[in-house]
């Protein structure tokens, strides 16, 4: 999952980015409003964490412009300002959640994950796809009740696919959401990880889960009649 953090305070941004990376999120950082706006315009972020008092362009403005251009990424506002009016205004303007500084890092992570989930249409932290169960809090995967050890990247790919069941997900889309920009040219890493995933998920008596569509991408298939 790819998160955009727009925060001008360098130390705080560094801490938040480190925490996001610890839980397997890919983070891009902008330290002023204009850069934040440009990055967000790509529409590739699963969540945007936005500070309000930014140099260049205020957080309110960034949010407003974003929604104006029909970018629907969930937005969590980080604010050091009090006052319910401004929060109500922000939520009405298209923000999805807010957190007051000084916040709890754990709470920020939980809220960001919840926003990602909601953005994908899921309502709990445990995702299931036929006989695969994925716990997003503990980052564990089981198939037919059997625990499966996955690398962080393999876990992220599976989580992303489960969030979009039955949809065709291109390699490009996976790269956008799951990797830092510097890795973009290694497009064959996806193929390697997918093949590893297939191998690990292949428990006895189970149907193949990940289907390859030539030149289009990958799709999770459900063997359940439902």
């Amino acid at each position: 999952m790819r998160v955009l953090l727009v925060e001008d305070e360098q130390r705080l941004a560094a801490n938040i980015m480190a925490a996001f990376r610890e839980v397997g999120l890919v983070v891009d950082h902008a330290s002023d409003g204009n850069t934040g706006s440009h990055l967000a315009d790509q529409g590739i972020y699963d969540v945007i964490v936005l500070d309000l008092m930014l140099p260049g362009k205020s957080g309110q403005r960034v949010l407003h412009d974003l929604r104006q251009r029909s970018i629907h990424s969930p937005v969590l506002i980080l604010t050091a300002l009090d006052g319910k009016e401004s929060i109500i205004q922000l939520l009405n303007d298209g923000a999805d959640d807010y957190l007051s500084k000084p916040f709890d890092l754990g709470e920020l992570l939980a809220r960001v994950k919840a926003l990602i989930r909601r953005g994908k249409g899921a309502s709990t932290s445990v995702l299931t796809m036929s006989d695969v169960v994925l716990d997003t809090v503990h980052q564990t995967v089981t198939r037919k009740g059997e625990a499966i050890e996955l690398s962080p990247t393999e876990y992220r790919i599976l989580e992303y696919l489960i969030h979009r069941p039955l949809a065709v997900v291109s390699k490009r889309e996976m790269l956008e959401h799951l990797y830092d920009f510097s890795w973009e040219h290694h497009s064959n890493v996806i193929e390697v990880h997918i093949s590893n995933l297939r191998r690990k998920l292949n428990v006895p008596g189970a149907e193949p889960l990940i289907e390859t569509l030539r030149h289009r991408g990958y799709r999770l298939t459900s063997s359940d009649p439902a």
Partner: protein
Amino acid sequence: MISRSVSITRRLVVAVLILEILAALALIVAITLHERHIQLKAFDATLIGSAESLMGAVQDAEDEGDNVLLDLRGVHINNGSVYKVVDERGRVLGSAGEFAQLPPSISDSPGFHDVKISRRHYRFFVLHGLRIIDPGNSKGGVRHNISIVYGMRVGRVWHEVIEAIRFFAIATTLLLAVTAIFMVLSIRKSLSPIHELAHETDQIGDHNWHFIAPASAEETVELRPLARALEAALTRVQLSFGQQKRFTRDAAHELKTDVAIVKSSLQLLSMRKRTADEYSAGLALSLEDFTRLESTVEKLLNLARLEQSHDAGRLSAAQHSCSLKYAVEEAIQQSKPLAQLKMIEVTANIEGEASVSLEARDSLLLCSNILVNALQHSQEQGRVCVTVAALNESAVLTVQDWGEGISEEDRPHLFDPFYRGDVSRSRKSGGTGLGLSICKAICDRAGGTIEISNHPAGGAVVVVTLPLAI
């Protein structure tokens, strides 16, 4: 607490009515005198006329002795009149009223006489006339010297005067009543803009400092200064209230951000088990974050201390004195690491001790804030020049850098708390935006000035002027 309430309406009405009553009284006195004069004249005329009618009524008696008699037919005698007609031989031809008490002497001298009879004032007219009867005879007629005394009570005159006064008094009373009613109504109407102004002023509250004087108050010449003064005063209050609010908000923002950094650093460290090296690196970072929080708090407290009770501060500042030379040297010493880091050459040119009325810590704070500011805005390998000179009873501190200078856009806000200028000078450059506000507060406290401008060689120059301590 209202100790005594005063009504302008009542005062005005009472004042006008008292004046009117005084005017009416003066008028009544004048009218009384005038009326009395007129009535007395008329009275005297009546006396003369009546006496002359009586003279005319003296007729030939047609008897042997060529006597005269009084024929009162066709002669009008006023009621209550007292008269006596006597001929030269003392014969009383006719009389009316009490004559017993009349002094006999008065009939000898013609003219007017005022006499008191049975405690009543009478006025008499004595007429001596010659009456010739039978003028056709050889001797040219018989001559009779007739003496007429005619009098009336003077009270009649006063009756007329009092009638006139009564008429006038009633008219005046009516006039007073009409005036009072008219005045009350008209004053009420003219005071209504005050009520409207008061109502509008009453709307001002914690959440609504917006005030526009009602048009009625603006149009009233007497109220216009009050309305304008209210507007101006409220605008000032609103402005300073806004500044205060902004300061509190910005201070909270600053503190919360610094606390957020400290908190997130520690929480990040505790997210999972880490190696000893990771822990010690994390703790070092956390300590750094904490130092920053501490410095922000210290700056805020300094600013609060300097701005609190401004006048009291001036007094206490006047009691202190310290050497600006020492403060500058100390500030240069303290900022050496930053200067070395950016390889900036700091040159100082200090003349004399330059003793100023400041606490030592404040003068050091002032010098080091300006110096650090100059270092932060200098390019690497640049230079900063500090001079202290005495000029006209003042110490002048100049700090010049060769950095990017100040933009016209920033100039009005340079001393605003938390103002950080443009993007490039956001939090990452390290400042809280309080340094210059603190400098300004220190200069204000010492009765000095601080100015920032660009110098032609490119870069900013800060000039601080402080009165020399006596």
